[in-house]
């Protein structure tokens, strides 16, 4: 390793090491410490990196920040960051495991909805970065023979999730323009099925019935149309597949197919 490479390895190790002390600061012999100690100097960069990464998490998880408050959010982020330092310069990719971290974080473990709200926010974030839909070819669909096996393709911006919590309502109540008349109960016994997809510049969120969720989930898992129908009708035998398919094609949620 070159001298500079070794110095940079030590610099990173100091930044990753959490609380710096005179004993554990690897950069101590490389820095001019006449006015400020080595751990004092390294702390500036450690804190600055943490602040920059926290800012990135704040952009991906604004509702979580609002729910727990800015100060506590910073505390949580710092704990998360020291365990999960970035390994890429593309900060859009950073923070996927934040939801599972929240589930284990002692001080908020009793807030059981936080993990799913964070998951929802990550899905919003990913949807905003996804590629656009291709154009759905209705004419080609009409030409497909009934004997052929069709597998539908989902929009790159689509994300589906289910939760035992009303995370859609929690998310909506924490937006700038909160819709009126949202009734929130954390004691409900029905699951929430959420579909996210981008239309133009906006990511839309819909709650759907269990059978439609099963239909989309089956397609997402790579199953063909027949298997998707079976999944949906296992949940609701009376479900209208025609209506469901037309609706999701028109919304751009289903954007193509292969035969």
């Amino acid at each position, binding site marked *: 390793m*070159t001298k*500079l*490479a070794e110095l940079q390895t030590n*610099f990173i190790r100091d930044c990753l090491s959490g609380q710096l002390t005179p004993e554990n600061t690897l950069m101590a012999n490389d820095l*001019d410490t006449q006015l400020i100690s080595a751990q004092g100097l390294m702390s500036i960069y450690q804190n600055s*990196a943490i602040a920059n990464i926290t800012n990135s998490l704040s952009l991906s998880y604004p509702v979580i920040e609002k729910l727990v408050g800015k100060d506590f959010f910073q505390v949580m982020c710092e704990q998360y960051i020291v365990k999960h330092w970035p*390994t890429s310069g593309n900060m859009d990719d950073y923070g996927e495991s934040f939801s599972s971290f929240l589930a284990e974080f002692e001080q908020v473990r009793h807030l059981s909805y936080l993990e799913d709200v964070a998951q929802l926010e990550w899905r919003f974030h990913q949807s*905003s*970065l996804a590629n656009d839909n291709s154009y759905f070819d209705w004419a080609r669909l009409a030409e497909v023979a009934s004997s052929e096996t069709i597998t539908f393709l989902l929009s790159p911006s689509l994300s589906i999730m289910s939760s035992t919590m009303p995370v859609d309502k929690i998310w909506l109540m924490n937006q700038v323009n909160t819709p009126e008349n949202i009734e929130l109960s954390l004691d409900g016994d029905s699951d929430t099925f959420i579909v996210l997809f981008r239309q133009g510049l906006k990511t839309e969120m819909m709650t759907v019935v269990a059978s439609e969720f099963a239909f989309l989930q089956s397609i997402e898992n790579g199953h063909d149309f027949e298997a998707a129908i079976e999944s949906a009708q296992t949940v609701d035998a009376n479900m209208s597949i025609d209506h469901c398919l037309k609706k999701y094609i028109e919304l751009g949620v289903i954007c193509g197919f292969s035969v």
Partner: protein
Amino acid sequence: MVLIMQSIQGVGVSLKHQHFQEFINHKPDVPWLEVHTENFFSQASTSSKYLAQIRQDYPISAHCVGMSLGSAAINCPVREQHLQNIKSTVDWLQPGLISDHLSWSASQSGHYLPDLLPIPLTEEAFAIVANNIKRAQDVLQRQILIENPSSYLTYVDSPITEWQFLSSLAEDTGCGLLLDVNNIYVSAHNHNFDCLTYLNNIPLTAVKEIHLAGFSTEMIEGKELYIDTHGDRVCDDVWRLYEQAIKRFGALPTLIEWDTNIPDLAVLLDEKSKAEAIITKVASIEKSNLIANTVNGQS
């Protein structure tokens, strides 16, 4: 889409997502805008779609923060992937200028710190940075500008001054320089050097762009440090230093840079007006001096 290919001239401002709609709907009078390239790696993203619209009306400069040009890591996939992401974004954006910093972020261990970390200014570091700049310019197929960062520490072994280091990089690699006047001021305070000595030792033709920004102060172990936050107005001392820079280098493209505590766009435009007034003032003085010299020469 019609791409605006004009060169970057006059006083531009940072383009932040908080101001996307204002630029699209009201098209304020700004000659060019600068973006952080890293915020537009996904060209299908919502942010990129806004930028594509804005790009139709404003020339864009691409300011990178993560090429990690000072990194000694060899065959570093983190850096190489980042460079390819930059290339992809630059190919799409066709910016008037591309810049990054004299700093590093990626280590041999595969970790990446989203910050502008300082390098020791040594012969060894010079060879590494020069090599990385040449590689970046080869991949991007164009000149890049290197910006002087703010720094808060100095290395024991760092025998070359920053102005010498940057000047030599420009000569050796053909890169241009992006002079951040605020960063000179911040580092000069933190490391006790003279701002004008710095300015006067930068070669006249190397500088292609100037940055102006605000900073904050922090007490560390009883010593007051200036911290480059890009979150406030430009201070009076930096405006005076900017005037000296314009006198020395001419009316170079200048950016009002703002990255944290983003205010109303009106605040950025107000700072832009101040920079324009200084450019006008310097041009006026130069014109008066030219006339006076001509008259004196005749008499």
